[in-house]
């Protein structure tokens, strides 16, 4: 159970993370709050987090929206294009559990039915502070993933040498 306090959150954020935002059918409320985190009031850009234009440059995938049938394959394609190690952060209630969108003929969601999700940020829409905390948790997870990848490579190298 990750318990975060403010000092620890601020201690983590200096490790910069590049995110790619994919809207899989949301109303834009969460997307606007994500953009608001980049703007002067919350200003996560000073910690190095930035929105990139291509999934190939990204460490984290931010997904909003209950996945519409139109977007299912495209979402998977974007996930596949991202290099390892990567994390998936779902922002907003509709991606987490569907929110008000149930009993529809055009939805494949929630997001964890389509992609493996690492962090869920709840809210409709979540406040920018909540999104920042979600990203901080994702950074911790990413660091852990990187460590385990590095140690696997080290093991393989050892075996190759001996």
């Amino acid at each position: 159970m990750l318990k975060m306090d403010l000092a620890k959150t601020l201690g983590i954020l200096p490790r910069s993370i590049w995110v790619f935002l994919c809207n899989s059918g949301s109303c834009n409320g969460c997307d606007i709050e994500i953009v608001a985190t980049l703007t002067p009031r919350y200003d996560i850009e000073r910690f190095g987090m930035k929105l990139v234009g291509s999934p190939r440059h990204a460490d984290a995938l931010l997904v909003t929206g209950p996945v519409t049938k139109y977007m299912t394959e495209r979402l998977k394609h974007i996930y596949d294009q991202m290099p390892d190690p990567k994390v998936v952060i779902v922002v907003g209630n509709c991606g987490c559990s569907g929110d008000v969108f149930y009993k529809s003929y055009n939805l494949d969601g929630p997001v964890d039915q389509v992609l493996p999700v690492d962090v869920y940020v709840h809210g409709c829409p979540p406040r920018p502070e909540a999104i920042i905390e979600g990203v901080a948790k994702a950074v911790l997870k990413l660091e852990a993933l990187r460590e385990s990848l590095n140690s696997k490579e080290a093991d393989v190298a050892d075996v190759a040498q001996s």
Partner: protein
Amino acid sequence: MSRRAEYTDKAMASEAVVSVIRERLGDAVEVVELRDRKAGLSDAVCFHDLWLRCPKDKLLEVLDILFELDFPFFHVMSGNDEGEAVLLNYHFSLFQGSGRASRLGVAVSVYLPKDDLTMPSIQDRIPGAEYSEREMREMLGINFMGMPDESLVFLPEDWDERIKPWRRDEAGPKPEQIRELS
């Protein structure tokens, strides 16, 4: 026959519009209701909505009359599967450029029998109706004769076109297609 594309600045009173329609089309068109819409501190009548009902072969004549008064602004088409027939409502506005509180909303209801779900397309006179006609085609199965683009507008490309989401009979979506999500 089509009026030049601009909004008139001379509004007519709603009752006068009703008289014109009754004079020209008589019993062919039913004036269902002329509704008052009130607002404000004094509960004043601010504008009217006119609800008409006509058989499907009279729609273009009603449209001709509307064109004589002003270029009809097209809002949307709404509709429903009523069981025996399919209801299609056209929503227009007249006189929205004429002055304060001058707009008249005109809604024309048409009932289409299920064995003849066709209507003439109005896109040649009001190109702004494109999305509504495509939407009614994919959702309710109404064919608009003469519409230039028949492709799906909101449903995904791999959707089975025989399934019309808003229909409540065998053409509608099956229960297995409706997901609870969580």
